[in-house]
């Protein structure tokens, strides 16, 4: 069976069709099997160069992309803001053009500004993968969360997913929203009004300001990180008050369905978004998310490269 993945880039999940989403998930499933073998490597991207351009700090996503590229036999270089000429005032475009001049075939970019990946994709011949742009999207996170739910529950159609927390600053929430709703899940966003604008209802999801009212219905609870670095003005009275109203503690967990999946994109603030016992408990799939992230990123690198390994052209 062949379906049409013809995209040079992966910029957002908003623009992907149901067929394209399913193609990434199906490809990731095969890569996950390969990751379980003694030899966890395939030659798909032999001779190609992947550059991770992380202008905003990240450990998990960057290491995940690096390992994914290595598992596909690509050559990988990673750059962050402090070790590049961006520090000296070079523009993002010039940095990227230089990387392309060095024959980089795929550029993975994380940037604090929404639209940074799109900006590069329209100006470069290289493939561009968005690894998080401001509060816009984090497509591979949305894909790995979706993959994890399907892996555990066997489906998405009709699955009730709560996304809890700092929605307004969250590219993770946005990417999840697009993938989940397209694949038939029922999404409810929960958070304090200062972090959850009503406008989200326009995207066809439910908006709630009371976690306790939503708990019992949920098949999946995805707890987002409180993003101190993006809090331009004080939107929360205190972290303690947030934890009291929107943190998943043991009392709240008692009222959840017995098979509920607990997710968190990391880094976890234990005792704030989720109680330590729950983060380490049997319903937590937080570490599955990390493992699945590797498989999903291999799938994305493979697909944008056209599934070919003839070197950079």
């Amino acid at each position, binding site marked *: 069976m062949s379906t049409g993945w013809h995209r040079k880039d992966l910029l957002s999940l908003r623009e992907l069709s149901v067929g394209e989403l399913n193609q990434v998930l199906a490809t990731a499933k095969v890569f996950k099997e390969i990751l379980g073998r003694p030899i966890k490597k*395939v030659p798909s991207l032999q001779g190609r160069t992947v550059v991770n351009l992380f202008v905003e700090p990240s450990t998990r996503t960057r290491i995940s992309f690096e390992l994914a590229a290595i598992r596909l036999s690509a050559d990988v270089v990673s750059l962050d803001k402090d070790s590049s000429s961006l520090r000296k005032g070079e523009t993002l475009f010039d940095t990227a053009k230089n990387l392309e001049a060095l024959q980089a075939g795929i550029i993975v970019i994380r940037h604090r500004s929404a639209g940074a990946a799109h900006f590069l994709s329209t100006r470069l011949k290289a493939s561009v993968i968005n690894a998080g742009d401001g509060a816009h999207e984090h497509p591979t996170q949305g894909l790995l969360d979706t993959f994890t739910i399907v892996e555990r529950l066997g489906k998405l159609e009709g699955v009730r997913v709560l996304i809890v927390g700092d929605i307004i600053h969250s590219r993770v929430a946005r990417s999840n929203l697009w993938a989940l709703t397209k694949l038939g899940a029922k999404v409810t966003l929960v958070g304090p009004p200062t972090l959850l604008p009503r406008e989200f209802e326009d995207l066809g999801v439910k908006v709630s300001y009371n976690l306790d009212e939503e708990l019992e219905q949920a098949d999946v609870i995805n707890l987002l990180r409180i993003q101190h670095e993006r809090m331009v003005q004080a939107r929360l009275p205190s972290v303690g008050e947030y934890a009291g109203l929107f943190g998943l503690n043991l009392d709240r967990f008692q009222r959840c369905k017995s098979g509920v999946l607990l997710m968190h994109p990391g880094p976890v603030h234990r005792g704030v978004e989720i109680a330590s016992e729950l983060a380490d408990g049997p319903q937590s799939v937080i570490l599955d998310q990390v493992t699945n992230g590797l498989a999903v990123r291999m799938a994305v690198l493979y697909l944008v490269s056209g599934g070919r390994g003839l070197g950079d052209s």
Partner: protein
Amino acid sequence: MGGQFMDGEAVRRAIRRIAHEISERHPKGEVALIGIQTRGVPLAQRLAKEFALIEPGQTLPVGSLDISFYRDDLAKNIPVPKGSEVLFDVKDKTVILVDDVLYTGRTIRAAMDALCDIGRPKVIQLAVLVDRGHRELPIRPDYVGKNLPTAPGAKVKVKLTEQDGEDGVAIEKEAA
């Protein structure tokens, strides 16, 4: 050039003959069959079935190999990979790779790479239904259903009941 080259009966006879050759060379049945997706897989299953008729009581393990990630050619349409399914240990076994058509040999090279990443077989052999020539790599089959001289541009179309509803081999018109 065009038209039917092998009818259903000819295909079935060829499979039966290959199964006999396998049993002659491996009388104790210490071999495993691994079909290369897509049409190598039903071929491998049929060879195992024929083998069991020739050597009653002997069941050859059958696996399937997905070589999507090992190809060295450009893919216009990227297939949705199915994944390999080899539920037995290939280590120290004689593994017979099975495919429908042998042409340049590039598929077989990819399949050998994919197989060696799963484990280290003692011996790898190759069984094909049709050898159409024009090799680009130093690869030769150990079991051949039929040799079919072709022009380089011609298309050889193998049909198998499991995939296509009927058995047969046809040569389609040369690509323009």
